[in-house]
């Protein structure tokens, strides 16, 4: 998985650049999240606007990062496409994550 990271004030935007967030790419994303959280990043937007396919491994990596952040931080999701959003709804993760249509609205929410 290729990632793009961008710091915007207190918020860090992590954009997934590959189209599949699945069992082969999720471990690397999880590893990167562990490093970023270890470096002190607490407000993270996971930009999924390029992701066309997600499976339970991708979902698990995102939930893992959210739990790792704990009460002091937050992971939000930005830009999910219709297919990805349908899986987030199906698994009820739309009730666990705050989800925004794009990274700008996600970052604005994290700044508040």
């Amino acid at each position, binding site marked *: 998985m290729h990632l793009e990271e961008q710091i915007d004030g207190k918020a860090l935007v992590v954009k997934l650049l590959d189209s599949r967030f699945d069992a082969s790419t999720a471990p690397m994303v999880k590893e990167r999240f562990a490093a970023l959280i270890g470096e002190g990043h607490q407000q993270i937007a996971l930009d999924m606007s390029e992701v066309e396919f997600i499976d339970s491994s991708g979902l698990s990596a995102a939930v893992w990062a959210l739990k790792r952040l704990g009460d002091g931080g937050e992971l939000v999701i930005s830009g999910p496409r219709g297919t990805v959003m349908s*899986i987030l709804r199906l698994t*009820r993760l739309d009730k666990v994550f705050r989800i925004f249509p794009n990274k700008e609205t996600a970052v604005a929410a994290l700044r508040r």
Partner: protein
Amino acid sequence: MRTGAITLSIGSHSENVFLIGLAINKIAASIPVTEQAAFEMEVAVVEAVNNAIEHAHHHNPAKQVTVEVRLETDIVRFTIIDQGAPIDFEAAMDAAAGMENAPQIERGRGFGIIRALMDEIKYQRNGCANYVTLLKYLKQPSEP
């Protein structure tokens, strides 16, 4: 709709699963279902293959996971075959039913997703192999 069957096999390595997913999506796109339904079939089959790789074959790339796809006039059947230990299918289905109440769990969503996306799931143990069959019923054009 055209009918037919194909068998796909991969070594048990997560890097290979996208090939199964892409093939399923392309096959599903050839039948009268929406893009969303084709995506859902892809997700369900990928979840079943992931389960086989992780739980049955423990990521041993020498072991093959096979996916049989059968397009019939009113149904699509995907059978995922592995050579792992028998599955406690009832327990897996019970756990899947609990997914709705515990969305924040880190792992164990696979069967829950399959159950929600497909019309039926069947399990058979034949010899040393597990056969997990996922069924999707197709609406006939005459139906409302």
